[in-house]
C-alpha cells in the first residue's frame, strides 16, 4: 500500500500514445526517481499527477483518495507540493512574503477572506516562515526582493515554500535542469539535508544520472510512454532494457 498509486494510466495526443498503461507505486518515505530518455512521457506523467492534464483512462490515488479530475490547488491541499523545472516563485514579493503565502495556504485553506487581519502581526505564520528560512540558510535574505535572487537562491526559496507546508509528497520536476555541476551538487546536498530532517516521500523526475543515483531509493524507467523497468538503483544500473532505451544518450 503506497502513498501514491498509479494504475493503468493512458494518455493519447492525437496519434501519439504519450502514456501507455503506466503503473507506479510509490512507497511511503521513499525517494522514487522516474527517469527516461527525452520524449519518454515524463512531463506528461507528472502533469497527470498534479491535475494539469487529465489522463484518458486509469486511476491515480494519493493517500487512498483519488486525485484525477481535481484541480492543482485541491491536490496541493491533500499534501502534494511541487518543485518546477525553472523555479516558480512570486518575483514581485519579498522572500519573506513568498514563504508566508504557503504558510497561510497550509493553515487557512484554499480561500479565506481575512481582509482585516494583518500579515505582519500573525505571530504563528511569521514564526513558521522564519524557521524555514533559517533552516534553508536564507534568513539574512528574508527582506530581499525575490526577483533579484540568484538562480540557486530561487531554487532554495521554492524548496522552502514547498517544505513549509509539510507535504506528504514532494514532486521534483528536473530540479537540476540547466544547472552547472557545482549548483547541481548544491541541490543534491540540499535535498539530502531535507531528507535528513524530514520524512517526506519524494518523486524526482530527472535526466541527470548523477543526481538520480545520489538520491533515489527506488527507480522507475519510462520509455516511449511505458514503464520498462523498476527496482533498486543497483538493479537498474545493469538492466539490459534500460541500456537499450538509453543507448547513445548517457552513461548508465
Amino acid at each position: 500500500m503506497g502513498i501514491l498509486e498509479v494504475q493503468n494510466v493512458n494518455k493519447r495526443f492525437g496519434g501519439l500514445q504519450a502514456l501507455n498503461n503506466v503503473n507506479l507505486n510509490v512507497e511511503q518515505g521513499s525517494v522514487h526517481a522516474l527517469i527516461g530518455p527525452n520524449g519518454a512521457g515524463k512531463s506528461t506523467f507528472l502533469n497527470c499527477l498534479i491535475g494539469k492534464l487529465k489522463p484518458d483512462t486509469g486511476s491515480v490515488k494519493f493517500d487512498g483518495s483519488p486525485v484525477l479530475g481535481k484541480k492543482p490547488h485541491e491536490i496541493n491541499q491533500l499534501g502534494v507540493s511541487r518543485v518546477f523545472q525553472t523555479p516558480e516563485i512570486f518575483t514581485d514579493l519579498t522572500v519573506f512574503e513568498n514563504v508566508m503565502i504557503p504558510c497561510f495556504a497550509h493553515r487557512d485553506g484554499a480561500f479565506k477572506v481575512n481582509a482585516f487581519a494583518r500579515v505582519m502581526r500573525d505571530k504563528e505564520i511569521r514564526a513558521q516562515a522564519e524557521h524555514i528560512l533559517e533552516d534553508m540558510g536564507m534568513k539574512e535574505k528574508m527582506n530581499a526582493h525575490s526577483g533579484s535572487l540568484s538562480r540557486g537562491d530561487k531554487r532554495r526559496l521554492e524548496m522552502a515554500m514547498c517544505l513549509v507546508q509539510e507535504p506528504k509528497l514532494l514532486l521534483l520536476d528536473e530540479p537540476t535542469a540547466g544547472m552547472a555541476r557545482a549548483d547541481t551538487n548544491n541541490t543534491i546536498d540540499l535535498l539530502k539535508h531535507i531528507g535528513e530532517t524530514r520524512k517526506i516521500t519524494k518523486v524526482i523526475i530527472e535526466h541527470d544520472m548523477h543526481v538520480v543515483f545520489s538520491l533515489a531509493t527506488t527507480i522507475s524507467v519510462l520509455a516511449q510512454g511505458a514503464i520498462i523497468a523498476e527496482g533498486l538503483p543497483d538493479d537498474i544500473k545493469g538492466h539490459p532494457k534500460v541500456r537499450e532505451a538509453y543507448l547513445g544518450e548517457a552513461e548508465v
Partner: protein
Amino acid sequence: MNVMKDRMTLLIFAAVVLAAPLLFAPTGAAYPDLLQRFAIYGIFAIGFNILFGLTGYLSFGHAAFLGVGSYAAMWMFKLLSMNIIPALILSVIVAGLFSLVIGYISLRRSGIYFSILTLAFAEMSYKLAYSVLTPITNGETGLQLDLADSRIMDAPIAEGTLPSTNLFGFEMKEVFWNPTILGYDLQFNYGFYVCAALLILSFYISMRIFRSPFGLMLRAVKTNQTRLNYTGIASRPYTLAAFVISGMFAGLAGGLLATMDPSVGAERMQWTVGGEVVLMVVLGGSGTLIGPVLGAVFIRYFNSVLSQINEQTLHGWFAFGPDWLTNAMVFIVEPFVGKGWELTLGALFMIVVIFLPGGLVDGAKRIGRKLSGADRRAAKVGIA
C-alpha cells in the same frame, strides 16, 4: 510596513481631506461641487485599485457598477426617502450583486480576454440602460425626481417643490459655514463632509486590505498564478472577491453622485467612463495606496481647470514678451487646453505608461530619492 506608520498615514490623509475646502482655496478648486467630485472619484479609484493594482486584472467595465449604484440610489430617493443612508446602502448592495454576476462570468478568463469581456459587459449594460430597461432607467431621458414619487418615509413638503437629498435632515447642498479666511471666501457644506468621511473610510479599508493576508494573496495572483495554485490557493475566488469589492466601491461612488445631483442617465455606464477610472489609477500609481486618490483629484482638477482656459486666458499668461512670441506661445499651447484638454490627458497618460509605470507616486519617489541621494538599487519600488 509597521502599524504606527500606517496610522500616521491615515491621520495625515484624514487631516488633508477634512481641510480640503481650505487647502484647495488657492487653486481655485474649493467650490463644494468639485471637492465632492474629488472625493467621489477618489472612492471609485480606490476600489478599482483593489482589483487592478493588486491582482493586475484590468477591467474596462467598472462604469457599469457606477451607473447601477446611481440608479439604485435614485430609486430609493423616489420610493422610500430622500435620506441618503438607505440610498447608499442599496447602491452598494446592488452594485455588489451585479459585479458578482459579471465578475463570475468574466473571471472564467484572464488577461486580455478578461479585459475584453468586461468591456463587452459595460457596453451591454449601457445599451440595456439606454433602451431595453427603459421602465427602470427611463432610457434616454434619464431618471429624475418627480413630484408624483411616493417617498413613503418622508413627511410631505410644500406642493410643487422637489425635495433635496439629506442626511437625517441635514441637506447635502446646504453650506453650513461660509467664512472668509486669508482673503478666500470659503464654503463648507454637508455634502462634501459626507463624501469626505466615506473617502477616509474607503482609504482605511483599502489600507487594511493591502496589509492583510487576503491582500497578499491578491498580489500573489498578479505575480505568479501558477505558483499560487500549486501552493494550494484557489485563485479565482480571490480575484472574484477583489472584483466584487471594487464593484461595491464603484456602487458607493455612483450612489454618492446621485446624492449630489439626484438624476442619472445611461451615459454614466458607457465604457469610456470606466476607461477614465483606469486613467486615474494608472496616472496616480496603481498598486499604491495614495496613488488612485491623487490620480482622481489630478484628473478631476485639470478637467475643470484646463478645460476652462481659453485664448484670452492664454494671451494673459504669455503677455510678458513681444507680440509675436505671445502669439506663437498661444498657438502652441491652445490645442492642449480648453476643449483640447483631453489630448493633454491622453498624452500625459501615454508618457506615464511608457516611462513611469508606477505613476505619479513612483515619480515623486524617484525625485525624492534623487534629492536625498539614497541608494537607488536598495529602494526597489514596493507598496507605498
